[in-house]
């Protein structure tokens, strides 16, 4: 199948949700005793902290979104895709560290699938001839989590969806994701897009 592919690459350079209260649904910590404030690291004992202290982490990248805000961004992206491109069949998202806060409700939609490495699925979805959009972010959501605050969006469409993709792109920019290269124009490909790395 011939695909039209569209690409967006951006970076978050400031805390885009600063001043906005966390979504109650996302932030609520589901515990049998209603404890809403516990976090992974407050549960750690001396042994765990000693293990952590032996690991090395990139310290020069700022943490601009917390896990709750990260899910908020992912949920927002799905809502924008649903608004601008409801015909897209699958929304693939990258997530490596499930947070101790609940994912945004939109992330449970049937067409959404969240996995660690989207590349093998991109290959399979192309084989099956599906229209799909991939959201990969490397946002540093904690000082112990690797990331460089970049965001990548790739659309694989059966026809020219340039206008719709541009609306998604503009929405991300308005939200505070700075574009770091010009979007590729819609080009028919042979279905083997090599841009997908990790």
């Amino acid at each position, binding site marked *: 199948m011939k695909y039209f592919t569209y690409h967006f690459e951006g970076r978050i350079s400031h805390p885009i949700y600063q001043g906005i209260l966390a979504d109650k649904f996302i932030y609520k910590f*589901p515990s049998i005793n209603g404890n809403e404030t516990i976090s992974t690291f407050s549960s*750690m004992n001396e042994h765990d902290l000693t293990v952590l202290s032996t690991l090395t982490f990139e310290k020069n990248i700022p943490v601009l979104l917390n896990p709750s805000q990260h899910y908020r961004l992912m949920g927002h992206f799905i809502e924008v895709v649903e608004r601008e491109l409801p015909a897209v069949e699958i929304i693939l998202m990258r*997530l490596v560290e*499930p947070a101790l806060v609940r994912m945004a409700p939109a992330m*449970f939609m049937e067409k959404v*699938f969240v996995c*660690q490495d989207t590349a093998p699925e991109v290959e399979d979805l192309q084989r099956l001839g599906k229209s799909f959009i991939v959201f990969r972010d490397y946002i540093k959501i904690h000082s*112990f989590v690797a990331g460089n605050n970049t965001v990548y969006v790739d659309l694989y469409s059966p026809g020219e969806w340039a206008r719709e993709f541009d609306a998604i792109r503009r929405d991300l920019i308005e939200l505070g994701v700075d574009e770091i290269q010009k979007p590729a124009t819609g080009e028919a490909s042979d279905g083997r897009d090599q841009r997908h790395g990790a």
Partner: protein
Amino acid sequence: MSGFTLRAMSFQEFRSPFCEPWLSIDDTFGALAGSIGPQIASVGASMPCNAEPAGHILCSTLIRECFSFDHIPWSRVRDGLHEYAGRFTPTVFVNAYECASWGYILRYYFLKNPAARCVMITIADVNLYNFSLWDEEQIWGRSGYGCCTMLIEKAEETSADLVTGFSRGSNIIMEFAIAIRKAAQEGTDRIVALPFFPANVRGIMDTVLKGRRLTRNGHARWGHSFGSDPWIAILDSVGTMPDMRRVEKFTACSLAFNGYYSLLDIDVPPGAPLVLVGQAPAARMGKDEYTLS
């Protein structure tokens, strides 16, 4: 009858700690591949479906920090597994939905490829960095570690046999139990395979699910083994049946820490290769093992 059939399944309990703490993450994954890979190959080899599986996915609740710390890429984990699992090597890794991942995987794979008939899923949970916070928790109690591989076949027509959902409030146990009560009819011969929880939490579920046949709570034996729990419960239940001559019907149920859940009506036919391997209770650190079925 359900639209889903369990064609083969194997669970192996892991000792804890899984590896000596001084091992590198690459060496730890090498050891893990040596445990998981042969299990995958054996389940794959007993594939009764005529076609190749439409997909094989590795999922986990606890395998997470190695990726968020960027200590190893998934592609290297996959390559390590390939040495043992060959053509049945999992292509994708999922941990977003935690213990409920297997249900969301089934939903996605049969959505993207409605013609698919078979999907293989491996659930692996191991405390890679020996963080004590994973060993015990307030709700789930003592943790159990291990690896479960299953081959699931879908009939051409399926009704609402798979339920994926999420809790909206803070009492996730109650919301989970109510979701099961809606899905599992009272007075049928279908057995509800529940996750393993401490007695106080299980007591809530027993009350809400009164009138249903439930698997026994394996928490004291296995600990809370994350997404593998209902599958161990099925293996345990089948293992106690003296002579299985008919299709046994189950509803497998998993609940994630954040309130996501998966429920699946699944039938187990007689003769399906089912293996349950535990570490000998007296030697959780040792090498003695026993097979229940």
